[in-house]
């Protein structure tokens, strides 16, 4: 098949501008999906940095009972911002916007996404939304203090800058929608000849499923946010109980988006896992179709369970048990994936390189997160655990231990391809281990705290929780150290790293057939696909290794 031997003198996309500009403008006005991906990477990483620093301050405050470094109001705004930044600015756009943009067209054998200019627009909308979040911090009234769920009626009573901050979330929604539209159309229209649906890499499948959630679910939060803003500005009665509105209806609408959104977060990550495991096991994925279909299944059944966030809200007992039942059913496709991944390692030829180590820690951490999801999915237990630290632990395990871990796995897997440089592998292994230890120290105690009855969003807590909170805070430092380390050696590798070859790991999906970093047009001519995505017999004809 293609195997275009990367010709040495070829210009990479870094060296070729897509427009008449050079220098910084050739980036800011680019319509090239790879450059846009890199710009997203920079922007999203910066906001992630803000989010984690806030997280560290929160942990610092919670280190001891009573006031440690800040007032209650400050703490309340910090956890709100932490949630808003992590959810809307980091984890929802994270994988699709960075790695989806960069690799989805390449893996399909296309030269770009379907609507390149829309893609750039979506980037700028993201930036505008992010700036609005930051601006809202400094306006009179003070930063938003509602929690990232901005439940009614608190969010219409508080005098802080709610409208501005949630308007930012509204804007960010547009960015998400446009990316989704782009990806769905790309997958339908721009597959290379021979790239049938079942020859698509699984990362494409999961990004495709994600894109559908982005399109269908995001508008619901859009309208909800808009209504809250209108309600605050004009006193229109929509949700306000003082005017007859129903605060629980607000919660329904909020979670109709926000539950599917958790699958926006995890699905692309699952796609990356399905790429990394075959590559380092050097054998085809086990149960390709089952994994592909389960991505679609997760995307669609994700709409059936939102009210499991509302088991104690006072909705009808009937819908409580219906939603609990559905929640359990919906957990099954995720389980299927885990089993398939482990089975893929069976009789492989496993080379546990850095990306693979990240994936192993993902499987462990995400399983903990997912399985504790079952604990809170059961009615009797959720009544006790709802809105306690148990839930906080659950979602950090799935979001950070799941998607966050895979964010780093993807970065390490595709770093040589994206930047043409290789990082220091010994450092990388150390950082995985540190990450793993710090992570569990930071979040595992929260399960116990939650079970003991420590509610979330608490600025202060009873003395009996003190020792576990302290452990947790210390864990946050180890974790922070690990991440710092990663960022440090990656930046070092950008400047001083060894040159990477076209295919350092021996992967066979299309991106490994082209040079590192890829040329401007990805492919000189559109390839014709003749193999299944993880057919390692191709390796014989390919050059690989470092």
């Amino acid at each position, binding site marked *: 098949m293609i195997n275009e031997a990367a010709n040495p003198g070829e210009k990479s996309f870094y060296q070729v501008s897509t427009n008449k500009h050079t220098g910084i403008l050739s980036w800011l006005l680019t319509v090239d999906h790879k450059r846009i991906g890199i710009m997203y990477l920079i922007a999203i990483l910066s906001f992630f940095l803000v989010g984690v620093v806030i997280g560290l301050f929160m942990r610092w405050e919670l280190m001891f009972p009573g006031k440690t470094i800040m007032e209650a109001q400050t703490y309340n705004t910090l956890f709100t911002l932490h949630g808003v930044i992590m959810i809307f600015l980091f984890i929802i756009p994270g994988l699709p916007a960075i790695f989806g943009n960069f690799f989805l067209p390449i893996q399909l054998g296309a030269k770009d996404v379907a609507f390149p200019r829309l893609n750039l627009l979506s980037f700028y909308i993201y930036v505008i939304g992010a700036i609005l979040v930051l601006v809202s911090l400094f306006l009179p009234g003070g930063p938003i203090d509602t929690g990232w769920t901005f439940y009614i009626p608190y969010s219409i009573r508080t005098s802080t800058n709610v409208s501005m901050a949630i308007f930012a979330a509204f804007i960010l929604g547009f960015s998400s929608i446009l990316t989704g539209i782009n990806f769905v159309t790309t997958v339908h229209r721009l597959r290379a000849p021979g790239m049938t649906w079942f020859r698509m890499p699984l990362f494409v499948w999961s990004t495709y499923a994600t894109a559908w959630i982005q399109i269908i679910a995001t508008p619901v939060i859009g309208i909800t946010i808009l209504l809250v803003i209108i309600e605050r500005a004009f006193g229109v009665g929509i949700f306000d109980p003082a005017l007859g509105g129903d605060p629980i*209806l607000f919660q*329904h609408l909020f979670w109709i988006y926000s539950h599917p959104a958790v699958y926006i977060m995890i699905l692309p990550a699952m796609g990356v896992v399905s790429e990394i495991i075959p590559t380092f096991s050097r054998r085809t994925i086990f149960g390709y179709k089952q994994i592909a279909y389960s991505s679609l299944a997760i995307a*669609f059944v994700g*709409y059936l369970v939102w*009210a499991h966030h509302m088991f104690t809200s006072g*909705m*009808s007992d*009937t*819908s409580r048990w219906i*939603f609990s039942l559905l929640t359990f059913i919906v957990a099954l496709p995720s389980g299927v994936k885990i089993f398939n991944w482990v089975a893929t390692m069976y009789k492989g030829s496993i080379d546990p390189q850095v990306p693979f180590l990240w994936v192993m820690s993902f499987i462990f951490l995400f399983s903990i997160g997912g399985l504790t999801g079952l604990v809170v999915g059961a009615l009797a237990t959720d009544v006790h655990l709802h809105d306690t630290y148990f839930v906080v632990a659950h979602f950090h395990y799935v979001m950070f231990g799941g998607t966050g871990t895979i964010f780093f796995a993807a970065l390490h897997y595709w770093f040589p391809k994206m930047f043409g440089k290789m990082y220091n592998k010994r450092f990388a292994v150390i950082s995985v281990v540190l990450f793993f230890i710090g992570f569990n120290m930071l979040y595992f105690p929260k399960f116990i705290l939650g079970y003991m009855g420590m509610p979330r969003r608490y600025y202060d807590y009873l003395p009996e929780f003190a020792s576990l909170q302290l452990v947790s805070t210390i864990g946050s430092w180890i974790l922070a150290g690990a991440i710092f380390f990663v960022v440090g050696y990656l930046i070092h590798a950008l400047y001083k790293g060894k040159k990477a070859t076209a295919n350092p790991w021996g992967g066979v999906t299309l991106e490994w057939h082209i040079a590192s970093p890829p040329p401007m047009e990805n492919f000189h001519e559109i390839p014709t696909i003749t193999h299944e995505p993880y057919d390692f017999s191709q390796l014989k004809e390919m050059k690989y290794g470092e």
Partner: protein
Amino acid sequence: MEHNNTEKHGGSYTTLVLVWIGLLALTSITVTVAGISLGQYTLFVALLIAAVKSGFVINIFMHIKFEEPIFKVFIAVSGITLFVIFLLTFFDFIYR
């Protein structure tokens, strides 16, 4: 990848005008029916007529009838999603 970009699809002038007449007729029906009291069924009838009207608009004015089948799948998917959302929300309000 060959797409016939200039393929003609869509109805003739007469079809379009006929559909329009149909839509106006349905509008007058729904207004008249609203005048008569049908009790519980008023809402149902009104929505039924609205659904028929939108069927016309989607199929003829919006050319879905002539579009590739995948478009119909898309519409079905988003329609079903919306329906499911309504249904599940009402499990709360009906059984309160």
